[in-house]
């Protein structure tokens, strides 16, 4: 099985205004897969669908080789989940929450749970409701890691946390990946954090998947070009035109393109134009340009 999560032609609707349409997503086994998108784009909903918390209208979801939501009881035994909002009972203590969780997972790693309690400096007797935001996040991560799942699904796990806590969480996560080779599906809008760790990236906006690609390919392929002399209409370019606007004075144009390869400058020469400069974009720039282009009416992928 090469894909840990496989979503095919997913369709889901909630209320009048929110709809996920034609979603196709593939999370390769052992990858760290980043799920990017602005707030309200459908990331959390997609995650809920993957975990069987919601039922799709049509389409197929397969997790760890089994269909969801039908097989959720079997699948969730191997999936660690950290939701966006703390979902644990505020009247139970850290110790009680750990013991509760341990009872439900035969793969529970007691030693690792203890290690993480020490490392995260959590006090076993504290009530969950009294913990700080960062401590709550750490506990939820602890529960997901001690479960020893093959898949970790994290919904904005470090959102709103201070940098120290974020580093602690990220380090613990990466240690886990090094040791277990698990697949991680992580949604976030902290693009720079994802840029460090993800080897795959998917971008979602308004219920649609804009693109899904290996991280390097997306970064290498998204460039800003300074172009002179390009005709108004271009036919069948080998790259994807995301935006095109005239530069401030000088008569040139700034293009932002996707799927770019260095040899493609010859295309411009072929239409009588010239590429004066090829500027690299980091993931955040690329992400912003992709969104802009998509919202203006560009097609998916």
């Amino acid at each position, binding site marked *: 099985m090469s894909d840990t999560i496989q979503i095919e032609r997913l369709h889901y609707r909630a209320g009048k205004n929110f709809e996920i349409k034609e979603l196709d997503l593939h999370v390769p086994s052992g990858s760290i897969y980043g799920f990017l998108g602005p707030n309200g784009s459908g990331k959390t909903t997609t995650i809920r669908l993957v975990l069987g918390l919601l039922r799709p209208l049509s389409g197929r979801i397969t997790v760890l080789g089994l269909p969801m939501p039908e097989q959720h*009881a079997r699948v969730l035994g191997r999936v660690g989940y950290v939701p966006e909002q703390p*979902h644990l009972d505020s009247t139970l203590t850290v110790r009680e929450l750990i013991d509760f969780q341990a009872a439900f*997972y035969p793969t529970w790693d007691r030693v690792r749970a203890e290690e993480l309690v020490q490392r995260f400096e959590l006090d076993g007797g504290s009530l969950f409701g009294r913990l700080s935001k960062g401590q709550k996040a750490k506990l939820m991560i602890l529960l997901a890691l001690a479960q020893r799942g093959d898949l970790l699904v994290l919904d904005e796990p470090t959102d709103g946390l201070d940098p120290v806590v974020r580093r602690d969480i990220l380090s613990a996560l990466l240690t886990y990946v090094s040791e277990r080779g698990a697949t991680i599906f992580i949604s976030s809008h902290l693009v720079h954090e994802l840029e460090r760790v993800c080897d795959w990236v998917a971008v979602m906006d308004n219920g649609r998947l804009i693109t899904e690609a290996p991280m390097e390919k997306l970064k290498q392929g998204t460039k800003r070009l300074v172009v002179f002399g390009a005709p108004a209409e271009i036919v069948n370019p080998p790259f994807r035109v995301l935006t095109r606007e005239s530069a401030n004075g000088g008569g040139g144009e700034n293009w932002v393109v996707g799927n770019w390869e260095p040899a493609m400058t010859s295309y411009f020469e072929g239409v009588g134009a010239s590429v004066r400069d090829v500027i690299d974009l980091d993931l955040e720039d690329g992400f912003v340009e992709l969104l802009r282009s998509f919202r203006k009416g560009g097609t998916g992928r």
Partner: protein
Amino acid sequence: MIARFRAVLNSQWKWSRLIVVLGTVAAFAIPLVSLQGAARADRGALQAQELLRAVQSWGTLYPLLATALGLLMAIAAWAPDHRGRHIHALTLPLERWRYVLLRFGAGGVLLAAPIAAVLIGSSLAVLTATLPPGLQGYPIALAVRFAFAVFVAYAVFFAVSAGTARTAGIILGVIAAVILVQVVAGMANIDLNLFGAAQTVLLQGPGPLAVFTGRWMLVDV
């Protein structure tokens, strides 16, 4: 499954500690208080009447206590999950119905305390009282009826607060069907009692909810 049940029981105990303790104390006290003053065998028919009246009026507390316990235990079982919008429970690796069953069972185990308290309290009350001639104590019948009332109340409120509309609907549907069958049987004069465990208890009328009506008499003719 045992480890899971214990985990669920522990959390449910923590949430409903106060209810169980208070309920047990009340369940123990009511029978004793209802028979206070019934100490002399040389009472005449008039005293017997007074005693029966006292027992009957105190007896109205049993269905109230049973309903309160059922309601509060059901709420305590589900309030925390509701607060977290059930996300935690729904992402545990077991089917929803199993989880619901675990919670129901945990509440049931905890409710054994007040039920036992009724049994012990009423037995104690009957043993230490000297009843006027012609009257008898029915501690076991009372306790069984109380147990039944508690469970019916608990089941009904539990179904409603279990959160998933589908589960609640199914459970209520089953109860309604049983009630319906009981009613039809009653109308057709068929001797049908679907709740065999409650044979010794006063159970006339259309089904399980009738347990709450009528008189709750620890001591009767």
